[in-house]
């Protein structure tokens, strides 16, 4: 099964190539276009890009494996990246991740039981002042808490969890007792 881009996208590729003194320089943006259309970077996508930009398939593969934003396996129609770097962790990112994992029924790196969402761990996404945050597909969702994460998942049609399975708030702090 070979891969090809839509005619519309092909025109964009031509425009991209024209921006640089070498064809190869269009590699990263062209791979993004292909992933947008195909959902992931399949071996066929790699062969296509190699042919289109006069590179070898192993060169393109070397690029694809270097960067984290190219999916080398099929992913769900929605991808949630949860930032776990320091500023976010200080403001609750671990709790956000735990809540996501429970409700989706998968660990980071996996796909939800209903197949709707793939959950991935991100490194700092330049939103540290608005922590904790996740990226859902193309959009940042910042200043999160448990209720806001629930609202996001509701919108994606992810089933709610029965109350007894939900992540519980921490026990009252000692000084309050």
């Amino acid at each position, binding site marked *: 099964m070979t891969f090809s881009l839509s005619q519309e996208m092909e025109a964009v590729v031509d425009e991209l190539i024209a*921006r*640089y*003194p*070498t064809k*190869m*320089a*269009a*590699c*990263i*943006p062209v*791979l*993004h276009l292909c992933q947008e259309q195909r959902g992931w970077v399949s071996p066929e996508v790699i062969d296509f890009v190699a042919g289109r*930009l006069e*590179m070898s398939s192993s060169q393109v593969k*070397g*690029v694809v494996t*270097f*960067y*984290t*934003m*190219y999916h080398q396996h099929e992913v769900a129609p929605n991808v949630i*990246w949860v930032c*776990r*770097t*320091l*500023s976010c*962790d*200080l*403001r*609750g*990112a*671990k*709790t*956000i991740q735990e809540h996501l994992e429970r409700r989706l029924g998968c660990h980071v790196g996996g796909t939800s039981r209903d197949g709707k969402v793939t959950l991935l761990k*991100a*490194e*700092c*996404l*330049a*939103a*540290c*002042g*608005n*922590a*904790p945050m996740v*990226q859902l597909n*193309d*959009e*940042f969702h910042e200043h*999160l*808490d*448990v*209720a806001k994460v*629930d609202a996001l998942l509701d919108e994606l049609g992810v089933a709610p969890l029965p109350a007894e399975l*939900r992540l519980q*708030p*921490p026990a009252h*702090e000692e000084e309050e007792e």
Partner: protein
Amino acid sequence: MASYDAILSNRFSIDEAWTLPVAERHGAYRVARKALTAMTPDQIKEEVKAANIRGRGGAGFPAGIKWGFLPKDAETTYLVINADEGEPGTFKDRQIMEKDPHRLVEGCIATMWAIGAHVTYIYVRCELVKSIRRLESAIAEARKKGYLGRRPFGKDYPLEIHVHPGAGAYICGEETALLNSLEGKRGEPRLKPPFPAIKGAFGQPTIVNNVETIASVPDILERGGKAWSDITLLPESFRDGGTRLYGISGHVKTPGVFEAPVGITLRELIYDFGGGMLHDDRPLKGVIPGGSSTPVLHPDHKVNAPKADDPMHPWHGKSHLDVPMGVDTMRSIGTMLGTCCAIVMDTSVNMAEAARNLMKFYHHESCGQCTPCREGSGWLVDVLDQIGKGSATRADVDLLVDISNNMMGNTICALADGTAMPMLAFIRKYPQDFYDAVESGMGENTRLDDAVRATLFAEAAE
């Protein structure tokens, strides 16, 4: 609280300042027009030199001097903007790109004319979708208006700007890795020399500057380099001029990005701009001053500069929090100014766990070309995990120090140093946290979000 003029950020709060008509109504492109029609490239370069602007991307190199390294007779020169913003804790460039992209476009126009370039590539990390969209639309507007293209402002000097997306790799913020990535390759740093100013993008002389550095150029030209430089609060001898964006995140009441002159103190940043510590009963334990690669500072540690001729003498005996933030002042107290975006940690934080969080980041992001960096960062994580499991001894803390020392100084790029230096500072300044972790482990129970955890459930609990 002192109040400072919004200069670089003066359009941030204006509705739709990202569109050309609004930006232009508030001053955009006046300088670009003047630069192209009434200034010579040398005049622009002189102003930028006089501005004493230190690169805003982290290394703090004076931009005016960097521009001077370009060969005189180059046929093709490129301007490349570093918008990879990935240094943990840093979130300032995104503000410029989202709120006022025309300022960056205008800076690119003036800079291209000054350095003899016709093409700019803005390398934006691909996760910043909104920044990319705003920049692309700003560039299209500028082209349509005749500010870019064949005859910008009627001048026979073609100019073009392209946005180039990254694909997820912190190391591509390192300028030579960025250039490889721009060329369609794996983002592996190159050996220097040759420096990009001699052999950069596509083998041609190239100036790589941070977003904020170039976005400051219009203000520098508008006010004049000297006047812009004088905005700084530092003595002139530091040659660290102007105004800049500061960020603050972590355990403060009002995290965010703020503009202030060069040389405010961390105390001002935390307690004025940041609104003070998140919980009044949990004091400051440590602050990472300028992105995660800059060594942590302890509020009780003091400046030691007893000699009268020491440039740091005016702050002798004062807390590190009271040192004006500048490239050289921060270096003098054993850390770095970096990106000027601070991460604040209160007493709920176990510094061994904070270190583990960051070391995992660096291990994940090492490009793997150099053995000390690739193996060293992995080893640090392993040892920290052992400590976390409670299966380590005190000697393992010394091992962390040895590994770090062996990572420094002999690698292709500065990522290895940026890993080892913060690791060493965490141990040197908070040894007890590491020894306690050795005694009792920090496995599952140690979290970094104890300070806020309960509040995340606030609504759900109602």
